[in-house]
Structures are given as structure tokens and as C-alpha cells.
């Protein structure tokens, strides 16, 4: 045998052996278990109402706070009392404590929603990175934060925050600036009437209508981004987004009408309560199990929600191959990350709504009521989020004219037929 480079380099390691692949599957299940089991145990320990625990801890802390203030005021009064002065009566622990109590309890829901909308995208991004990686025989982020790259989205976020905010020279400055704000703002508002578990921040009577209507506003921001960037690709992306979102809004709204007919209310918590209980003692009363209508509604809702959130196979507005990521081509740094956060906020919103309307929201499976309702809610929502991720990394992109045909010639007629069937069944 002649000498060759293989003698210097040694045998090449085959990158994909069966054992490697099997090991990766086992590993991903281990990761999943390591994530889910402790969280589940914690929530079962906490029980149905974490708010009560918060209140107990909060009132204890407040009691200590009040006691400290009273003590301070007493000592101070003893001091200034020598001079014949006295602090005013409103400067007492009871007054200040009461003020803090009111302010905290008033601000809590807002802070919670802000945090949810900020943090959930990070969670979903990490989930997407890992799920996509394992679907594509990769590992995904493994280093940032040590444990399976859990801090990768935060690192990405910091990187985006520190980047220079570039505005194209000939862009329409105000339109360009306001577009990400207008895309993100409705996402915050829409989370208000969603019951996370059994309680919503604001229990609106027309919650369903409100969420569907307000989330449709984001398209204005996309159009603004497309137009304001002064770039042909972004204009095409913005126009596509507008056409798509406006068209798919219609079958989406119609597909959820049977639920309103069935539950007799548009309040989201009302719809959730209607789905508690069992058919024939074993089948949950979730709307997806409602004969015929439930399944058709669910499929149409799922498809239209994927289209509404501009995700593959309907990601024409940000088609990377053709339009160089569409309406946000000209955005960098923090503004780009706002578009990014908004996309994932809408994905979670769509999935949360899907879980509420079709999968019973916080309603448990039979004999599993010991798991708190918010776990059910988040579990179902993340299952739907996983479906979205699965679609994204499996399907090619549909073409723009076929997209419209699919909406107007297939989804819309079927959603109308669905309402008719629902009417017949509910007579």
C-alpha cells in the first residue's frame, strides 16, 4: 500500500451511526423529562391557585413592612416629641401598607402580561431551536447557559439589543419607526382576556371577538414596515402579508362561530366552562370531540392560524428564498427583535386561543383533575405550538396565488358548510 493522507489523519469517524442517532433520541426524551417532571411536581404542590400563595406571602411581607414603618414612626415621634412636634397621622403603617397593597394588586396583572409576552417568545424560540435541530439531526444550541443552551434566546436578544439601529437613507422615517410598535402593541392587548387556567386578567363578555379583532390590527404594522422601508422586496412582502392576513381572517372567524353557537357565549372563560365535564363518563366535553363540526372547525382554525401568524407553509410575507425575508428586510437590532417577539407572541396567542376553544383550555382529562388547570392550559398550548414548529420544519412554502385559492375556494366554503352542519346538529 502506498502512503497516503489517511495514514496521517487516521480513519474518518462516520458522522452518523445508528447508535449515535438512537442516543440522540434517547437524549431528547431525557431532556424533555428533566424539564417536564420537576415543573409538574412543583405545580401539583402549589395547587390550583398560585394567586392565593402569592397573596399569603405578599400579606405576610406587607405585615412586616407595616410593623417596621409603625416602629420607625414611633421611634421618630419619640425623638421629635421632645421638641413638641409630631408626624401627621396619615404617616402610619396602616395607611402606607394599604397604598402599597392597592398599587401592587392593581399593577400585578399588567406586569404579569408584560412579562408573559416578553418571556414566552424566548421560551418558544428555545423550543423551536431545539425541536428544529432534533428534526434535522442536529443538536441545536448546547452551550449558552450550560444546560442544553437554555439561555440562547436571551443571548440572541442581548446581541440584537446592542446592534446598531440602521434606518435606510430614503426610508419614510416615521412609518419605519412606528411599524414594529404597531405590530407588537396588539399582542400585549390581546393577552388580557385570555384565561390562563381558570382566571383571566380581564374577563370580557366579548373576549373572543375582542382577541380576533385586535390581533388583526398587526397587519397595519406589516404594511407600514413594507412601505416605509422604501425597498421593493419589502413592499412585495407587506402587500402579500396584507392580502393574506385579511383573507384568512374571514374563514378563521367563521370557523370559531360553531363554538359560540354551542357555548352560547363569547366570553372566553364562559367557553372554557362550557367544555368542562365528560360525555358518557369518559370523553371530555372539549369542542374538538363534538361530532363532525368540532374536527372541521379545529382543522380550519389551525390552518388559518398558521396563515395568520405568517408561518410556514404560509410564510409568503417573509419568504426568505424569494423576498429576502419580506417586510422586515430593512430592520436591524432592536426593531427587528420586536418583529420577532411579535411573531412568537402571535403564535402563542393563536395556540392559546386554539387550546381554549377546542381543547378545553384548563379543563383536565378524566381522572387527572389533580393537575392544576393552568398546567393543562399551558400544556395544550405548547402542544399546539409544537405543531406549528413541526409544520414549519416539514412543509415547503405554498405559492401566493394558490394561497388565495386555498382560502377563498376551499376554506371559506367549508367553514360556511360547517356552520350549517353545526346549526342542524344543535337544533
Amino acid at each position, binding site marked *: 500500500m502506498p502512503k497516503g493522507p489517511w495514514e496521517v489523519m487516521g480513519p474518518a469517524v462516520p458522522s*452518523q451511526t445508528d447508535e449515535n442517532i438512537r442516543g440522540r433520541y434517547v437524549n431528547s426524551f431525557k431532556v424533555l423529562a428533566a424539564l417536564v417532571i420537576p415543573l409538574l411536581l412543583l405545580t401539583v404542590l402549589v395547587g390550583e391557585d398560585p394567586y392565593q400563595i402569592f397573596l399569603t406571602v405578599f400579606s405576610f411581607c406587607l405585615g412586616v413592612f407595616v410593623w417596621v414603618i409603625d416602629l420607625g414612626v414611633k421611634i421618630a415621634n419619640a425623638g421629635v416629641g421632645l421638641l413638641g412636634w409630631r408626624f401627621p397621622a396619615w404617616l402610619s403603617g396602616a395607611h402606607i401598607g394599604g397604598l402599597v397593597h392597592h398599587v401592587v394588586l392593581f399593577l400585578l396583572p399588567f406586569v404579569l402580561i408584560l412579562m408573559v409576552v416578553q418571556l414566552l417568545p424566548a421560551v418558544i424560540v428555545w423550543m423551536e431551536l431545539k425541536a428544529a435541530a432534533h428534526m434535522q439531526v442536529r443538536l441545536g444550541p448546547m452551550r449558552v447557559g450550560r444546560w442544553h443552551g437554555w439561555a440562547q434566546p436571551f443571548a440572541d436578544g442581548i446581541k440584537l439589543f446592542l446592534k446598531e439601529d440602521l434606518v435606510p437613507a430614503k426610508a419614510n422615517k416615521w412609518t419605519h419607526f412606528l411599524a414594529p410598535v404597531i405590530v407588537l402593541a396588539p399582542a400585549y392587548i390581546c393577552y388580557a382576556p385570555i384565561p390562563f387556567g381558570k382566571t383571566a386578567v380581564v374577563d370580557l363578555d366579548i373576549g373572543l371577538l375582542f382577541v380576533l379583532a385586535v390581533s388583526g390590527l398587526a397587519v397595519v404594522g406589516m404594511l407600514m414596515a413594507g412601505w416605509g422601508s422604501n425597498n421593493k422586496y419589502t413592499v412585495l412582502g407587506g402587500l402579500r402579508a396584507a392580502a393574506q392576513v385579511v383573507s384568512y381572517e374571514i374563514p378563521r372567524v367563521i370557523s370559531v362561530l360553531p363554538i359560540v353557537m354551542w357555548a352560547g357565549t363569547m366570553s372566553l372563560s364562559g367557553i372554557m366552562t362550557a367544555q368542562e365535564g365528560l360525555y358518557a363518563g369518559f370523553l371530555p366535553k372539549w369542542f374538538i370531540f363534538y361530532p363532525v363540526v368540532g374536527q372541521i372547525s379545529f382543522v380550519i382554525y389551525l390552518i388559518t392560524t398558521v396563515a395568520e401568524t405568517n408561518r410556514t407553509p404560509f410564510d409568503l410575507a417573509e419568504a426568505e428564498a424569494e423576498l429576502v425575508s419580506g417586510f422586515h428586510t430593512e430592520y436591524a437590532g432592536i426593531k427587528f427583535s420586536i418583529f420577532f417577539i411579535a411573531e412568537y407572541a402571535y403564535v402563542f396567542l393563536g395556540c392559546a386561543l386554539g387550546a381554549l376553544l377546542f381543547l378545553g383550555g384548563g379543563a383536565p382529562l378524566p381522572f387527572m383533575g389533580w393537575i392544576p388547570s393552568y398546567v393543562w392550559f399551558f400544556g395544550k398550548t405548547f402542544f399546539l405550538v409544537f405543531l406549528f414548529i413541526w409544520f414549519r420544519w416539514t412543509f415547503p412554502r405554498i*405559492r401566493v396565488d394558490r394561497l388565495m385559492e386555498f382560502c377563498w375556494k376551499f376554506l371559506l366554503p367549508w367553514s360556511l358548510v360547517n356552520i350549517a352542519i353545526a346549526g342542524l346538529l344543535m337544533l
Partner: protein
Amino acid sequence: MSELPGPAGTINASADDLITGPLFETKCERISETEMLLNMGPQHPSTHGVLRVVLKLDGEVITDAVPDVGYLHRGVEKLAENRTFSQFNILTDRNDYLCAMLNNWAYCGAVENLLKTSVPERAQYIRVIVGELNRVASHLVYIGTFGIDIGAFTPFLYAFGREREIIMDLFEQLCGARLTYNFIRIGGVMSDLPEGWIDKAQKFVGHMRHCLKEYDDLLSYNPIFLDRTKGIGVLTKDKAINCGITGPNLRASGAALDLRKQDPLYSKFDFEMAVRESGDCWDRYMVRRDEIEQSLRIIEQALNTLPSGDVMAKIPKINLRPPAGESYYQLEGARGWLGVYLVSNGDVKPYRLHIRAPSFINVSLLQELLKGWKIADVVSILGSIDIVLGEVDR
């Protein structure tokens, strides 16, 4: 604008001329108020390199398209005139970098024709094995990038990141390089196969057959993929022949023409020509997918019947002076007929060299093919005719 030199019909102008100058106006009539000019490339994710296509759009429909090549021009054919015959071999790798082995082979074949040397049989078999492996690797890149063009990202990581990687590993063991091999040399191949290589290659053949089924499930028969590619960008058989299209693009249009079928070396192996009828994007994709299957058959047979003996003919290592004369050698490259025309005046350097690059001829189709389709179809048509800009621009 001044008249630009160059033969009539070639695109040989500065960027401004193409958009506003006389050249663009002759290529497509003046732009109307409802139309828009869109500059696709040279920096664009799906032009597969630095190709620029100027599109005239009516809404999303393309009314005219002008491809503009030359951004990657390195003057390879001129460089050949300043290098010795064996020195130029490494530059052939850089033309079509996705199937560098076949480029080496085409050039070495031309030099061997001049020298009138015959290559040892074992070396010929090794050439077939590595050539077909490289064809598989090239088609795998095609499958992956075509998937990305259509919007499916995952097949790319299967084809490019998993299967092609094994081929790269095999080649790395063979010659130490993973992309530009310089493995096929004038008179034979660089070295014999290392120990255990044949087993690994055979294992890969089995693995690859299994993976083709996976691609079919994931991509080839996906309804959205079919919707995006069936009936899109149809190239008729006559048109393809008239334009000088060769290789998989021609066979997708229904013409059964494969240089390997006429090659006495390949007549030792039992394989079928991959031919499809309608000439749309899906057929161009499927021809390549079928060709992977046939290449695997050839590799398997060649590995099983590999003769023993030398891998290099007795030719001078330095001071190689082919007799004065000219030669033309062509073989079935991964993108079409890859030909090398070589003129020698008896010196150590070639007097003139020309490469018939199949990608360059394929890219000339674009203007005809793109008209009337939508922007999304530009990407699928461009992806389906499979160009490598390194070879287009040379």
C-alpha cells in the same frame, strides 16, 4: 451610453446599462407605469451564488427577465496558459466545485488524449467510483437547495448535512480534501484506495438507498412541493436541444441522451438512463433523484469488480510536454456535458484551453423560461436548472 464591445446578443455591460441603458431596452421593451423593475441578486439568498437577474414585474408576474453573469469571473481559461499541464489541474476543481472530481477527470482526459496514454484499468474504475460518488454528492446539494428554494428547510440538512457529509468523509480519507480534491491526475489517480475504504463506500450505498425513500416521503411527493413544481417552467424537448441543453435538464425534457451510455468504460456496468417526459421543475428534480439511484448501482458494481494493478500510468512527473496538437474530451458531468478543449504547441503549458461549462449554457435558458411566471416560480425554476456560478463565470 457608448456601444459596448462583444459579440451581438451577449450581455456584456455595466450594471447601470442593464437597468437604464440601451441594452436593457433592447432586451425588454420600455417599462410601463404598472410595471416594476426588480433587481434579483447579485446578493440574494436563492440565486445560488452571485448571479443577477433583472426582473420586470407586473404585480407578481414576470414580464421579462435578463440574467447577468460574470460576477465570479476569474479568467480560469486564461490562467491555464500560464501554468504547466499538471499545475492547472487544481484550478479545474474551482470551476464546478460541487463535482470537482468530474472536472478533474474532464481536464485529465483531454491531456491524456493529447499524450495518447492509456490509463490503468484500476485507475479507470477508481475514477468511475469517485466520479459517481461526486455526482451523488452534487445531486444531494441540488435536492437540498431546491428544497430551500421552495421553502422546505429540513431536506437540506438531511441531504447536505448528513448524506453528503459521508461522501465528504470518504473523499477526505482518499485525498485529504473535502471540496477541491485534485485527486484525478493526468495518467491515473493520485493514490490507491485506503484500507477499509471499499467497505465504507459499500455501507454508504446501502445507507443512501434508505435515505432516498426518506427524501421521497419528506419532499418529492409532498403535495405542496408538487403544487410548486409540477407544470412550472416547462422546457420542451425541441427547445432544450436547440439551446444546447445537456445532462439532467435535457433528460427531464424527454430526450434520452447520456454520454455515459456511449462511453466504453461505463458499458461494463449495468445502469439505466434517468429520463422524464414533461420537462417541468418536478421532472428536473426527479431526474436527479433517479440518477442518484443509478449512480449508486454503478458504484456498487464498480466496487465489487474493482481490478487490481497500478493506479498511475508511466508518464513524466515533471516537464510534461504533450505533442503539439489539439484535443477535446467530454464526459457526462453532474450538470450536463462537461467538455475541455485543449490546444498544445509542444510546450509545458497549454497554448489555449476552453471549457464547455454546462451551467453557462443552462443559465442562458432563464430569459425564456422565466417569462409569465410569478416571483415564487423564479426561485423554483432557477433552482431546478441547477447552476453553479463558479462554472458559469469561470
